């Protein structure tokens, strides 16, 4: 972290090598963020480029009040959300509810058998997973991506999305539950798990 602070400071003073190193450090994560958010390689590439262009242009404005990656993720997230809004929805908005407590408690739940993780590398399966995420409205998708896929803390996720930690938790719980329900469907439909 200390090394990064030094790197950011050098980059703020126009050190091109420091800028390069920051891009190298974060390029994969920003690309993945864009890919999961938009489910489009082209959009992910656009988000990647725009994020780092803005980073270079505005890094002198970064004051260190938050961590550097929080600042950078917020830039990427804003670009990504703008992109999402500008596109017609592929799927109708689904209703995202809290887990049905009565259902969980009353029906004898069946376990999923051991999952063959090798299947995930198949493009067809990953496409199906992407389609399920695409059904999630943006406000839930963003939390799921940041918290579960990028493993950011509740606090950092809340800062990036500018929502309260409680909201982050509720959205995450609903997103996880929604995806689980959707995966149940996939299991039944294709026997994938």
């Amino acid at each position, binding site marked *: 972290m200390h090394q990064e602070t030094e790197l950011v400071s050098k980059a703020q003073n126009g050190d*091109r*090598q420091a*800028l*390069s*190193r920051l*891009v*190298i*450090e974060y*390029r*994969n994560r920003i*690309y*993945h963020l864009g*890919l*999961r958010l938009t489910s489009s*390689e082209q959009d992910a*590439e656009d988000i*990647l*480029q725009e994020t*780092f*262009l803005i980073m*270079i242009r505005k890094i002198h404005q970064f004051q260190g009040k938050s961590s550097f990656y929080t600042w950078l993720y917020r830039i990427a997230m804003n670009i990504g959300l703008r992109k999402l809004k500008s596109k017609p929805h592929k799927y109708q908005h689904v209703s995202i509810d*809290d*887990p049905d*407590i009565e259902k*969980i*408690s009353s*029906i*004898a*739940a*069946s*376990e*999923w058998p051991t*999952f063959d*993780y090798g299947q*995930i*590398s198949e493009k067809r*399966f*990953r496409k199906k*997973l992407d389609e399920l*995420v695409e059904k999630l409205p943006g406000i839930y998708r963003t939390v*799921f991506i940041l918290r*579960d*896929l990028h493993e950011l803390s*509740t606090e950092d996720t809340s800062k990036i999305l500018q929502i309260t930690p409680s909201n*982050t*938790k*509720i*959205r*995450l*719980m609903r997103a*996880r*539950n929604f*995806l*689980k329900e959707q*995966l*149940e469907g996939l299991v039944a439909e294709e026997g994938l*798990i």
Partner: protein
Amino acid sequence: MKNQNELYKKVCKYLGCDLDSTPCKQIQEYLKVCRNCKVYVDKIKKTVNIYKVADSCDQLPDDVCKKLFMTLDLNDSDHLEEFSEKD
């Protein structure tokens, strides 16, 4: 805890936290005896894991990376990459 529904609500609230954290020992204990809760939590964990594995399969394509550095007018030398790549 007061009643079963209250417990289920807390289990759900717990699911908005880190899945491996221990925000509430009482809930962890309860999960041991509540089979449906255990199955539910296991499925949520598997769901997250499936997505994590799927996410790691996608790599930043080389051409996209090259284009990025060209656009930014920055240097993407192997030396720099060795220096700081963590993944």
